[in-house]
């Protein structure tokens, strides 16, 4: 499943540089954009492979978004691809933070930039909820399994809000999902990719 494919490291760097320069709010807020870039346009991954990597990225001891970049880079271009993906992904944000730290005063975010700060936060939260909906809508399972899946989503959401560590919630969710939502037809994964 996770066999590296030979994609040029420069292409990987270029794609992740664009992703890093145009996404806001972290990995969960960027799921749709990543799907378009990696699945629809580049064709490097199938949709279900990317979905799995989103969840697997929570198991890597590093920030999620950079972990996802490293996983995709490793899968498509091996070690060089992994480094290229992470470097491209973090470069725009890291340069922007350092540049702003060098130029601006710390009280700026509580003064002139406060409205922008709040507006970005509101937009990110809205994008996150919208992306959560899309993940449920695009899951190709039976109606009954969909109801079970929504209960699973709600349980993971509630558990994390109650203080359960994210990794524990993800692992328990994996196990419960594997038990409760079995592939009802051999072509479930193919149907997901066609969607």
């Amino acid at each position, binding site marked *: 499943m996770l066999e590296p494919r030979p994609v040029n490291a420069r292409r990987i760097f270029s794609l992740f540089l664009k992703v890093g320069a145009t996404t806001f709010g972290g990995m969960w807020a960027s799921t749709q954009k990543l799907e378009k870039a990696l699945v629809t346009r580049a064709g490097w991954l199938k949709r279900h492979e990317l979905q799995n990597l989103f969840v*697997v990225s929570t198991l*890597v001891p590093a920030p999620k978004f950079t972990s996802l970049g490293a996983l995709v880079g490793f899968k498509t271009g091996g070690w060089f691809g992994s480094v290229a993906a992470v470097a491209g992904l973090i470069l725009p944000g890291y340069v922007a933070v350092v540049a702003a730290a060098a130029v601006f005063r710390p009280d700026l975010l509580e003064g002139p930039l406060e409205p922008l700060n709040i507006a970005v*936060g509101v937009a990110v*939260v809205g994008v996150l909820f*919208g992306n959560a909906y*899309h993940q449920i*809508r695009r899951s190709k399972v039976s109606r009954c399994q969909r109801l079970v899946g929504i209960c699973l989503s709600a349980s993971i959401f509630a558990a994390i809000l109650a203080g359960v560590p994210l990794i524990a919630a993800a692992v328990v969710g994996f196990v419960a999902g594997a038990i409760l939502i079995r592939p009802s037809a051999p072509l479930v994964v193919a149907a997901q990719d066609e969607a």
Partner: protein
Amino acid sequence: MTAPGGLGDIFLVILLTSLLSFGGGNGYIPVMQARWIETGLLDPALFSFVLGLSYLTPGPKSGFIAGVGYYLAGIPGALVAALAVVIPTCLGAAGVSYAAKSMEKIVSLVTPSSGFILAGLIAAAAWGTAAPMNLSPLHLAGIAVVAVLVMWR
């Protein structure tokens, strides 16, 4: 080499703290606070500033790590901080990829439910982002509008 706030210290602290960062970059924050803020090496206002900036700038929210490195040791500090993020991330991703390769059957079992698991994780991230923001009804309406637009797209 590893004087507090020096390049070696920045590299080692961020590298080792990555091990506490399963599922997100928040594991860095308490360690940085204990190591550099409580010891007076880094002004708390500067730390808060780069944390806020990382939400306003594109890409991963871990951009504040480079900002902390910059405040501690200038541009070399920022570069070393970035390197200390890249190394454990790539090593960890490779390790998880090799492990996942030997667990293909398990991966195929969880594939049908992965969208639902993701939805729960994303919704929790949304709540976690919104909770500290002291949102007014106008902000909530804004969130609803953006969410509907994304759902509709």
